């Protein structure tokens, strides 16, 4: 990885970001591979999950509709928190599912749930996005969120709070940050988070505790200074 990219990634993910990819590409073709860093923890797969994914492998539209409906929001939330730009988040979310569709043939049950695989794709696409020079042209923060019928001030305040939370989130260590993103923003379970991060569930439990504690402290400090 060249110095420029490293510097830019550091600015995006914090200076201590250590570029340890959770998954690697097998080649330039971009085919996804299972993580090299295995947790050793196996997650029980439910029969419907296995069935659904096997139908998805047959490119059954109904199966993909179900997978999309189940996971799209959490993928979107995860990406949005990372890229902080609604349009980019939408674009990447769609890419995640398209990529999943194209790579589903390479997916095998090796103790990893489908959702973990999906989030690894998401992670990779985010990293790819920040590698592109064009990503620097994007406004750092652009909340073009759909306004609901609720009070506009509330909506605006929500956006501002969101920015504050995400800004403080950036100050956490990469591991802590990813734990928060996967556990609370993407709403994954401990086991699923462990699979995505390549860690043991116990480590994720410790990480989430430390992360939330740090975040609470940062937000409290911000409140005092502000």
């Amino acid at each position, binding site marked *: 990885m060249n110095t420029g990219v490293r510097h830019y990634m550091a600015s995006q993910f914090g200076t201590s970001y250590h570029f340890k990819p959770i998954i690697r590409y097998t080649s330039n073709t971009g085919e996804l591979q299972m993580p090299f860093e295995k947790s050793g923890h196996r997650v029980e797969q439910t029969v419907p999950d296995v069935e659904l994914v096997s139908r998805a492998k*047959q*490119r*059954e*539209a109904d199966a*993909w509709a179900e997978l*999309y*409906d189940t996971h*799209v*929001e959490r993928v*979107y*939330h995860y990406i*949005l*928190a990372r890229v902080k730009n*609604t349009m980019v988040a*939408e674009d990447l*979310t*769609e890419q995640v*599912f*398209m990529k999943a*569709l*194209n790579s589903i043939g390479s997916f095998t049950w090796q103790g990893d749930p489908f959702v973990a695989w999906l989030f690894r794709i998401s992670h990779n696409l985010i990293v790819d996005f920040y590698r592109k020079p064009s990503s620097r042209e*994007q*406004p750092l923060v*652009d909340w*073009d*969120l*759909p*306004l*609901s*019928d609720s*009070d*506009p*001030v509330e*909506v*605006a*305040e*929500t956006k*501002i*709070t*969101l*920015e*504050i*939370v995400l800004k403080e989130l950036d100050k956490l260590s990469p591991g802590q940050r990813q734990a*928060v993103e996967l*556990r*609370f*923003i993407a*709403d994954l*379970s*401990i086991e699923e988070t462990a699979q995505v991060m390549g860690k043991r569930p116990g480590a994720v*439990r410790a990480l*989430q*505790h430390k992360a*939330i*504690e740090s*975040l*609470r402290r940062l*937000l409290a400090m*911000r409140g005092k200074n*502000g």
Partner: protein
Amino acid sequence: MGKELERTFALCLEALRRGESVESCLARYPHMVKELEPLLRTTSAVKQTTHVPMRSEFKAAARGRLLVSARSSSTQSQQHRHVIGWHWRWVAGLSAFLVVVLGWGTVVLANNSLPDETLYPVKIATEEVKIALTPGKIRKALLEADLIEERTREINELARMDKLTLIERANERLDRQLERLATIVASPEVESSQSQVELEVLVEVGAAKQSAALKKAIEKAPESAKPGLNRVLERSEDKQVQARQTIAEKKTATVKPDSLKPGGKSVPIAKARTLTPTPTTASGQPVPQRTPVLDPKATQKAIGQTILPKTPVPSPKSTQQPPVTTPKPTPVPKPRGFIKSDDGLASVECQPCSPVELQRYLERVHKQALSEGKPFSAIVVNAYTYVDNKPVKQEGKKLFRITENKDTSVRIEWECGTCDARLLESLLQRIENFSKSVMTITSPSKKVVFFLTVSVDAKKFNITLLSDKSQLPAKRPAMTTDYQWSLDNSTELEYRTMLAFNSAMRYTREDFIAGWLAIWISKGMSDEQYASRLTVLKSGKAYSVNVDSFNKTILAVDLMVALKAEGFNLEKLTMLIKMIEGKNVSWKQFKDTAKRMTGKELPTLNNIDKGVELWIKWTASHNQPSSGLTQR
């Protein structure tokens, strides 16, 4: 304690995931409330703030595209075996030529080239090879849609680099690709698939993107280049109409014969589009399917009938019906375009006609009227219903009706388009909040007034055209606010207002933000602050100002609803900006402080007009609004 807290925290989080409340979890561990509570509250806050809703339009569109891809890839493997045919010989030959003679690197480099660059022909040839190599109609259609996007990117890039003469070249190719896409969508293979609806949306999206790119280029172009580009845009819009017609004709052929009007005669597009006087009034020959004009009773009766299906998403199964070939149905007459008569009555006929398309026609009528200096008193819009994704002619169920009111105004009641019923329904749902509002746009001549009423209960829009502002009915429908945009002679503002009209409900975010800026200026925002905001605004990055899709419309309407409800509270907006700039105070804190300091509640600014007037006044004092900042 640390480990225990970590474990308890994890247990509580699981409980919260199952739907328990923070309180109930805390009650279970009373001895740890002090440590546990802040952690759980922080977690809830993170969840609450980051779980922002997705735009439902995007969610649905992306889902559709995914499913199209899934279906096409499932059929692709079967089709793949059968596609080896004669054309593969030249495809293979051309591929080999491209790779061997030019080298793979050249082909990759060519991907980003523009029409004036040496590698552009390589790019085009590569695209052609890709299309030829892509098996299956659906995959081809998806690829064509991608290439259409690439052409619009080129147009945007050329406009940015001021290479206006080359835009036409890129656009011609885009025209052809749109036509090819429409042909694919209309092909029997696609028609019998479940993806037809989604693919039709691709045609619409491609057309909308093309228009948006060209309009953006026109907006940026110097005055001398505008007429040429306008002609390019008009030509493309004609092509878009033809593309839609290609699809519609195919559908017409599959409509059951008894739902068609017998004896109808097809009208050639070119003929229907000519600006000849309408034969209805002059010669007495009725234009096919012309709406009965000036018949309030009939209209009232018809308005009561709703044409929008309650669930507007067309059933995929409906597209699976085998085409009816015998007896050969008589095609529904398809008069398109507009015809302007001598008596000031402009007649627009549309079939099938999307709301966007209709707006374009109306815009043309408006332009025509303005250029001729002959304001018209009415527009008659005739259309056919388009139910379950099929054009069906049904007497008394036309999309548009016209009535003459006692106060001499003529009201067109738009019961709503159906070509893309899902989008429209989605818009209507949002417009529910927007009821009883009226937008009036006054043209520079002050002679033509568009009067758009959005009424919820009937789920319809009313567009009224008056020959003079003074003819606004004294008793208007119940409404809360009038938004009036008076224009100076600035071409840019003229264009923007035209754009606003063109989009009817689609007031761009830029329009609204312009209002905000005006308010900020009036309150003494420094030039630097103002300039930085306008730069962001004009760059189009922070705010999506393109009206290139219906989704933007919905956003604009949402924003309008929000601002209306908010009453354009200046203080709140200013405060929000301050917070964004890093002051990090909450609205409540700000308000309380202000109250403490001034001893009174913050005043509110309830009228957008004032802001807009200030904006116009300010821009008018600078001859070139777009570059006014540097002069200030």
